[in-house]
């Protein structure tokens, strides 16, 4: 146990140095594996273990013991219980046990004015009952459904968090290095489950001012959502997955996406909370914009030229990602290790880099487990400063 405490302190120091603009002893590893990965890897039934969350302790424990990383790889915040109780259309469990996310929208064109005037009321009164069918009922029944769903959410999330905290201590993981909040860029929030990707593109052409107004109305909600439930720390971060920018023309990005997104990240930083951006798809066109974000914004890149991005952003921000998980399935062990070496050679010099993959690993069969373990072992033993 004393060894684990010492290991944990060593790992914490890696991240403190990273965030304090110092060279850490080595490149920190921030591996995230999905709850589905954990359950499949443990050989359990996917649907059953997501409903009976007591089973997750065994699944997470096996995963924590088998993969080298400096932060706890277990992450879970979506559970089927409350989605089912609410009659969700946006997250539906498939026959294989995966929570699928169909393209839905709960916000109609005529809702813009009300949303701009009072976004939270619009969400409560109009959007939620369209997406969650069990809420589309009389007020008494709706109250009962909501109470049951909230209780289910609270029970499952608390249970999951207790398990994860226990394993963090057991395996000596650093409690810092990941994120402790979650929100979306206002334009992504509007584009995702409110209007849907297809509708928002039409709205930009037909009612541009209303789209701008809606993003501005959504901004305070996102700032509030992105703040952690405890005082912010320079070692914490709010996770913001970025969706729509690569699908926009630059002039539309400048008008609709960037202003409220930048304000969101700026305001979080001004409150003492950094952002941990998942820079989805290819943001090469927008690197100069990303540079303008507050120093030490964490940026996990999916695609793009690591050298170009290191040159443009690496002295100001903290970079991660890039490593293609597809390689873990298709390449040899040596090729996988060589790729890790290549990325470390580009990204590690000067610090401000932590190792992870280009996206979270969702299923156990999407990678060759031995390759994954070999890469993590290589980084932990060789990426020293």
């Amino acid at each position, binding site marked *: 146990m004393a060894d684990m405490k010492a290991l944990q302190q060593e790992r914490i120091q890696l991240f403190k140095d990273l965030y304090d603009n110092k060279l850490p002893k080595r490149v920190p590893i921030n591996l995230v594996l999905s709850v589905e990965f954990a359950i499949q890897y443990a050989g359990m039934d996917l649907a059953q273990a997501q409903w009976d969350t007591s089973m997750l302790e065994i699944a997470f424990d096996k995963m924590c013991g088998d993969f080298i990383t400096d932060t706890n790889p277990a992450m879970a*915040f979506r559970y089927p219980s409350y989605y089912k109780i*609410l009659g969700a259309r946006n997250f539906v469990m498939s026959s294989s046990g995966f929570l699928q996310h169909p393209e839905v929208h*709960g916000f109609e064109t005529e809702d813009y004015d009300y949303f701009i*005037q*009072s976004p*939270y*009321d619009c*969400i*409560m009164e109009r*959007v*939620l009952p369209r*997406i*969650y069918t069990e809420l589309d009922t009389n007020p008494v029944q709706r109250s009962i459904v909501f109470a049951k769903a*909230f209780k289910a*959410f*609270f029970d499952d999330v608390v249970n999951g968090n207790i398990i994860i905290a226990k394993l963090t201590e057991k395996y000596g993981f650093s409690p810092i290095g990941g994120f402790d909040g*979650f*929100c*979306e860029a206002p334009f992504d*929030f509007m584009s*995702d*489950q*409110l209007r849907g990707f297809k509708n928002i593109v039409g709205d930009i052409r037909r009612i541009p001012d209303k789209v701008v107004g809606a993003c501005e109305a959504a901004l*305070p*909600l996102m700032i*509030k*959502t992105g703040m952690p*439930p405890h005082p912010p720390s320079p070692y914490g971060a709010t996770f913001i997955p970025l969706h729509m920018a690569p699908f926009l023309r630059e002039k539309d990005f400048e008008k609709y996406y960037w202003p409220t997104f930048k304000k969101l990240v700026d305001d979080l930083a001004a409150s003492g909370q950094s952002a941990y951006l998942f820079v989805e798809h290819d943001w090469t066109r927008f690197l100069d914009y990303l540079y303008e974000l507050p120093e030490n914004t964490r940026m996990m890149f999916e695609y793009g030229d690591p050298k170009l991005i290191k040159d443009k952003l690496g002295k100001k921000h903290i970079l991660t990602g890039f490593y293609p998980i597809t390689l873990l399935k298709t390449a040899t062990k040596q090729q996988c290790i060589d790729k890790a070496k290549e990325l470390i050679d580009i990204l590690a010099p000067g610090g401000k880099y932590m190792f992870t993959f280009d996206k979270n690993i969702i299923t156990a069969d999407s990678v060759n487990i031995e390759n994954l373990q070999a890469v993590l072992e290589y980084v932990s033993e060789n990426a020293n400063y």
Partner: protein
Amino acid sequence: MNTQYYKTWDEYMAEHPEIDEKLIPVMAPKIQGYEEMMFAFVMLLLM
């Protein structure tokens, strides 16, 4: 926030003048905590 579905503690207090002052230190974090949890849950449902 311009809404009828989220209240700060001060707004709650304004509606409940009967609350004993000595209970405020123990009531405020609890009541506000539930308010924040519900807000976080609602927003998660759309993300």
